[in-house]
């Protein structure tokens, strides 16, 4: 009588694959990779982390933010300035950076959602917000060092001040941050369902009892907080920040690019996107950046166009299509 039996349960193998991946990545430093490889892996994980943070509001929620560089940059400046001016450990600064990221996301998100700015209008509002933040960071030069940026002093290996002599230490930290953000987003199952419903049709979602505005704001605030945390890591790892590199439009675009390229409708999409794009972008820059200025950006752009034309759901979407199964876990 009932046809219920026929539906198969969602495959569980993804969970084991994720754990295996984390263990494998954690073992990489023990193989003694050349520093440059470690550096690229750190960047891969950083952009996987940022793309996953962006994906909450941008992918699941469908609110295309062009301003995530601002949340990231404000986080980077917050912990760095607190350390330089008040000697506050960047580990604590990181928590405050999360608050600043959350607060600035609420500042731009609340009016947008309150007055129903959607689609291209939300993208433009966040774009403008990002540009304003860069201008402000540049203008208040007495505090921020202006367009020259800030070089925090190198103190050697001081773990409690978030400074390490080896790249491997930073690698392990960003690996942990990435693993935690994936697990966090994975745990937010109801929120993800609601965000996807909002992305698909706000009114139909409201008719099913989804508090649309509240969930959009929640996603923006969490996404902003996580981006701010990423900013602190970036400032500590590079020991140099300036408004363009830490908060600029190029950064915002790079974050959303890894998410869209990898597949913004899935948990692991941004990670896949970063795993493919970040090394390509780094290698192209090294091979071509010196001799043919700008050529690496052209090739990068071409790749993006091809992916968006032929795989609108990103690499993850294409993989799912080919394998005929969902790659969720």
């Amino acid at each position, binding site marked *: 009588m*009932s*046809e*219920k039996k*026929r*539906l198969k349960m969602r495959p569980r193998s993804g969970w084991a694959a994720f754990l295996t991946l984390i263990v494998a990545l954690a073992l990489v430093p023990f193989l003694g990779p050349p520093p440059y490889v470690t550096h690229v892996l750190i960047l891969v994980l950083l952009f996987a982390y940022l793309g996953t943070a962006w994906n909450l509001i941008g992918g699941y929620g469908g609110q295309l933010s062009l301003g995530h560089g601002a949340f990231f940059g404000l986080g980077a400046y917050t912990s760095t300035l607190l350390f330089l001016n008040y000697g506050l450990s960047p580990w604590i600064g990181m928590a405050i950076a999360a608050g600043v990221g959350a607060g600035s996301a609420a500042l731009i998100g609340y009016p947008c959602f309150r007055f129903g700015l959607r689609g291209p209008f939300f993208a433009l509002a966040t774009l403008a917000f990002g540009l304003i933040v860069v201008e402000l960071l540049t203008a208040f030069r007495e505090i921020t060092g202006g367009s020259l940026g800030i070089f925090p002093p190198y103190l050697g290996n001081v773990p409690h001040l978030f400074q390490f002599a080896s790249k491997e230490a930073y690698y392990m930290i960003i690996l942990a941050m990435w693993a935690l953000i994936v697990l966090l987003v994975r745990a937010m*199952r*109801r929120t993800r*369902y*609601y965000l*996807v*419903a909002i992305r*698909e*049709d706000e*009114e*139909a*979602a*409201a*008719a*099913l*009892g*989804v*508090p*649309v505005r509240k969930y959009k704001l929640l996603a923006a605030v969490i996404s902003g907080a996580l981006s701010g945390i990423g900013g602190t890591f970036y400032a500590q790892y590079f020991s140099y920040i300036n408004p363009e590199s830490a908060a600029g439009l190029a950064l915002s675009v790079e974050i959303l690019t890894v998410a869209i390229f990898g597949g913004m*409708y899935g948990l692991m999409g941004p990670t896949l996107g970063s795993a493919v794009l970040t090394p390509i972008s780094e290698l192209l820059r090294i091979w071509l950046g010196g001799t043919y200025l700008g050529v690496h950006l052209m090739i990068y752009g071409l790749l993006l166009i091809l992916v968006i034309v032929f795989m609108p759901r990103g690499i993850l979407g294409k993989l799912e299509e080919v394998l005929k199964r969902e790659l969720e876990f």
Partner: protein
Amino acid sequence: MTTVLEGRGLSKRFGGLWALRGVDFRLEEGEILGLIGPNGSGKTTLFNVVTGFLKPTEGRVVAFGEDITALPPYKICQRGIARTFQIARPFSDLTVLDNVVIGALLRTGDPEEAVEKAKNILDFVGLYRKARDLGKNLTTIERKHLELAKALSTEPKILLLDEVMAGLKPAEMDAILKTLVRIRDSGVSEIVVEHVMRAIEAICDRVIVLDYGEKIAEGKPREVMANGKVIDAYLGREYRLA
């Protein structure tokens, strides 16, 4: 009998046009109330006003004894009033199952439980074999069933159905009529907007008729259909017999 939903003097004006004008209605517990009227008579507007998608220009909506006029749609849904849309609105890039899970999450925070509940509801409306299909790949009829499944997933006490039978063949209509009666028998009161008179006659306890935004008749289906004003509204005065 207790009144579960009540409209008091509901009016809605769009510019110079009164889409609703002074409409009073009551929905009693365990009843199926038919809402009929020619195209443009204000049926969907009434649904939109009751479910918070439109604010009435005048009048109040009272549900379970409380004024819900100023509440946003999601809060009205949380209070146990669910609706379907006349033009089905599936979440088109989601599977049929996930479409229903989203509604089921209103009453449980546990996704596994919501999935189980969604499966039961899909089974109930006969969409189970489509659970893995994407919303956008459904036929018109399947979309109507999905609308019903989504509304049911929020565990409503009151269900507002906007033309769930339009375009169905007689056999399909009988199936959905049976479903609506089963839903009513499970303790849900319903308001049904429908053009198909046979359907209205078969399941409605009472009917109200709108014309140009005003209520022109109310009563048992057969009485209302014999009412001169109703015949005029549908067919025009010249068709009136004797």
